[in-house]
């Protein structure tokens, strides 16, 4: 894979400045690099003060550190965004319909469009959700669709995050930081705002309140607590939404509702934005050892007394083996061709695919079906022979646990370094809100960037950084 074939979002494939970056480039040329270096340090300081931190899980210990921020924005034109958002909306509609079907009549299985094993052997499938009709028919209230770009007109969906997509606080803080540091840049460029996200989130969640709601819906954010790596985001979102931040021990079942302890007694919660995994959500119904959940919340949920966002069991839609069926899923429920492409995927559970993958490990990316955060994956082209040999054993012993994909040449966006601009690979996670009122996609999202030259791993847990993401006004 030669450097020349990689699409750069600023310079294209042939070093010709692309339109969305023209205003930024003019501004950048006018800047004194020394001033920008000072600004880059200021940005780091701002993040430290704000306290956005993220735990990086090493082999032994978790160490708290900042996710590096780069001041060069990732810029998307209005026209590009229109196509992306249509594709995302179609995909999210399909995912919701899929979940309704999987926990309902399972027509897609009866129609033979996906094999029953995809669900029956799916660890995220939650039998307790069968027959449950969530308020407004919404399963995935908050979705993050991970996109990568490989050419001017070529976007792929890399992953659908349908359980608890994180990172939206970075989207908001990155913009806030850029606005503070470079107000003049925003004065000369029309960038669509992202600052409505918290109020949109609140409205969208409120629109999914259950019938039991009396008066304006009460929304709360359930966090596992301060030791969770995303605690900052939980507190931040609750604060920005004007919602309560609660832990499991603050809540209990009272008068048929889930209620939180307040100074004025127990107050029922209508919508709970939970950032606690399914298994830990309810020790009475799931893992009895969980200290993080609320005993009986599933009973209240099944009786229609609370909305849990995202719905329990939504993980069945974002496992990487189900991902490989997303083109069929989109067609089955929307009757349309998918607007956004899926990355071609080999399911190692299928003997022929496994044979191909084993023969081509050095060229492929192999991922765990239920993995996330860039853990437990093999990137063939950059792996050592030893890595590949070790991975081969894991793959052979549990083939059904893995899928493989070609190594995509992800687009690059320049980052600001001591030697000037230097291209680095990026991805993009737009954030999507779903309610009976419709699907709302915040223009922008989280751009993650691999800070090491040539690296394709953008996950913050693997040392990636972030950028502000601009969608230009038309």
């Amino acid at each position: 894979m030669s450097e020349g074939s990689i699409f750069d979002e600023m310079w294209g494939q042939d070093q010709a400045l692309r339109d969305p970056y023209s205003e930024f480039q003019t501004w950048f040329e006018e800047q004194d690099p020394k001033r920008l270096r000072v600004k880059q340090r200021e940005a780091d300081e701002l993040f430290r003060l704000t306290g956005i931190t993220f735990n990086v899980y090493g082999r032994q210990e978790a160490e708290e550190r900042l996710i590096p921020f780069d001041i060069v924005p990732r810029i998307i034109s209005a026209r590009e965004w229109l196509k992306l958002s249509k594709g995302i909306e179609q995909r999210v509609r399909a995912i919701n319909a899929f979940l309704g079907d999987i926990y309902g009549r399972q027509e897609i299985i009866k129609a033979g469009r996906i094999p029953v094993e995809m669900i029956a052997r799916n660890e995220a499938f939650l039998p307790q959700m069968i027959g449950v009709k969530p308020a407004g028919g919404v399963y995935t209230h908050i979705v993050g669709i991970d996109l990568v770009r490989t050419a001017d007109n070529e976007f792929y969906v890399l992953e659908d995050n349908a359980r608890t997509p994180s990172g939206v606080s970075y989207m908001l803080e990155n913009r806030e930081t850029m606005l503070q540091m470079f107000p003049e840049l925003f004065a000369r460029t029309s960038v669509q705002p992202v600052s409505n996200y918290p109020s949109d989130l609140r409205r969208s969640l409120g629109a999914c309140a259950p019938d039991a709601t009396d008066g304006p819906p009460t929304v709360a954010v359930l966090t596992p607590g301060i030791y969770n790596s995303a605690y900052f985001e939980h507190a931040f979102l609750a604060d920005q939404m004007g919602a309560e931040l609660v832990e499991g021990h603050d809540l209990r079942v009272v008068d048929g509702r889930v209620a939180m302890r307040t100074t004025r007694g127990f107050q029922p919660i209508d919508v709970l934005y939970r950032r606690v995994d399914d298994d830990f959500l309810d020790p009475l119904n799931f893992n009895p050892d969980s200290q993080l959940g609320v005993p009986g919340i599933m009973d209240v949920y099944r009786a229609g007394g609370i909305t849990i966002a995202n719905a329990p069991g939504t993980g069945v839609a974002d496992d990487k083996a189900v991902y490989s069926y997303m083109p069929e899923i989109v067609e089955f429920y929307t009757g349309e061709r998918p607007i956004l492409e899926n990355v071609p995927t080999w399911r190692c559970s299928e003997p022929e695919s496994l044979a191909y993958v084993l023969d081509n490990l050095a060229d492929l990316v192999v991922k765990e079906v239920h993995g996330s955060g860039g853990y437990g994956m093999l990137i063939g082209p950059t792996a050592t022979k030893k890595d590949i040999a070790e991975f081969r054993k894991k793959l052979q012993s549990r083939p059904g646990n893995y899928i493989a994909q070609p190594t995509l040449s992800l687009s690059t966006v320049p980052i600001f370094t001591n030697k000037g601009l230097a291209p680095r690979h990026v991805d993009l996670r737009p954030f999507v809100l779903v309610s009976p009122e419709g699907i709302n996609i915040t223009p922008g999202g989280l751009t993650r960037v691999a800070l090491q030259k040539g690296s394709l791993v953008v996950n913050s847990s693997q040392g990636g950084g972030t950028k502000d993401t601009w969608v230009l006004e038309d």
Partner: protein
Amino acid sequence: MRLKIRHATRYQFAEPVIYGLQQLRKTPKTGHQQEVISWSTHVEGGQKEVTFEDNHHNVVELISIDRDATQVTVISEGEVEIEGSSGIVGRHPGPSPLWLYERDTPLTKFGPGCRALAREADGGTDLEKLHALSEVIRDAVKYEVGASHPDWTAEEAVAEGVGVCQDHSHIFLACARHLGYPARYVSGYLMMNDRVDQDATHAWAEAHVDGLGWVGFDISNGYSPDERYVRVATGLDYTEAAPVIGTRFGGAHEALDVQIQVAQQ
């Protein structure tokens, strides 16, 4: 046959309860050969929070135990009309897909002990094979009240060679699923002909046979469930069909008293 049922559970705690919940599956199912004429649940020392139907069509009631209560009593009673059908329950209407009942669970995990029993279950037809399985289990694992522990797995009961209806049912489920039949646990009442006061709730198993649908097997008694059997709750194993599961803070040292009366009207 019309049966009048009264099922009282009373938990007594040596120390007051700070906070507690109980999930009840004590309401007989309506459907198949069974019609619930009347049914009510009465709670003392606690209150009803919510009622819903779970993914096995069980009526589930969640109750909270009153703060500082030292005992909670739940009385479930009513009348049920049952038609005899020599064990055949009938087609599977959902809501859970049939394949769900092919899953094993920690309590019904298939191991060497079950394998040895399953191998002996010979029969030309599905029904013959399943009846043979039921007999093999009853011969190998002696019914003995109080002999087993409620947490025993199917394999543990086979290894010990003794058990109660719960163990017999778990072994049957493990083996039937291994033989390719979707199978489920049934908890309910059995009217023993010679008495009104019954010793305990009963448990049996159902397997799904092509062409017939669900068929019941009372392994412990060697019967096909008839009009004396009241189906209350079903699940993949005991934990999904148990009359009461609970969680609580405080209220150490519980003592449980169960009274069950089943009488023909």
